[in-house]
């Protein structure tokens, strides 16, 4: 990978050792979701995997949205 940025590499790669959230894939309403579980027990949607472009406009499926 090539980075083209005025930032220092140290800044870009800061917090590299940070604890990564636990990642899992679930299927819901016929769509696949990539879900992150954070150490505080919170679940957030990381990525929607769908070939239907209008799914990406559904505000409930936006990346980062919390799950209840």
């Amino acid at each position, binding site marked *: 990978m090539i980075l083209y940025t005025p930032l220092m590499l140290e800044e870009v790669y800061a917090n590299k050792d940070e604890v990564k959230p636990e990642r899992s894939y679930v299927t819901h309403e016929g769509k696949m979701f990539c879900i992150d579980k954070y150490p505080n027990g919170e679940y957030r949607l990381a990525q929607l995997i769908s*070939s*239907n472009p*209008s799914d990406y*406009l559904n505000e409930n499926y936006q990346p980062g949205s919390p799950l209840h």
Partner: protein
Amino acid sequence: MNKEENPGEKQNNPSDTLVEKIQALGQTNVPQAGDSNIHVLTIIGQVEGHMQLPPQNKTTKYEHLLPQLVAIEQNPKIEGLIVLLNTVGGDVEAGLALSEMIASLSKPTVSVVLGGGHSIGVPIAVATNYSFIVPTATMTIHPVRLTGLVIGVPQTFEYLDKMQDRVIQFVINHSKIEEETFKELMFAKGNLTRDIGTNVIGKEAVSHGLIDEVGGIKEALAKINELIKENKQDEKGLLQ
């Protein structure tokens, strides 16, 4: 209720939702649209196949895309497919599997190479009925190689050679490039600093016959609509 099974459920407090939306997207609302007759496959990062890659890699898992391709072929409401590529390559067999699936769809398909469509991204890009490349995008064509321990050098060499041949055959069968030209690009010396091969950019990919046209999403959508129209007329003709 199981937490994991309800990703779409709305929250009760509207102000909380608003704050979360701003945190996640930097904006409050996104446009809404009805169901689209054109579906989109985005192939980004590494094409992940038999081996799971470490989490810092952005990957496209082929086991996620294959069922989507089946659904696209099977669903009568879906009339066309656009493949968006920005990939650094990856698993040869996963890439070839995706390429063959895209090539064998009965519905019109168009690809757009954005940023990069390297290595195994090349067969995926040419697998569609019509391919586009944006002027700044690049495609690296280089030989298939292996790292790590090799036991049985002649056998490994032959296996790799056959694997490479499968890639070459697929590309020449699905694009306008000549076998000679493609092999020349693949084994060219002096273009890449630490490898043999060639990096073709936008217009060059078109002049070699690898990609059909230079263009972006506007051209791709116009082309897919045209192909869908042709496809419908053909079906009508068959019925009459």
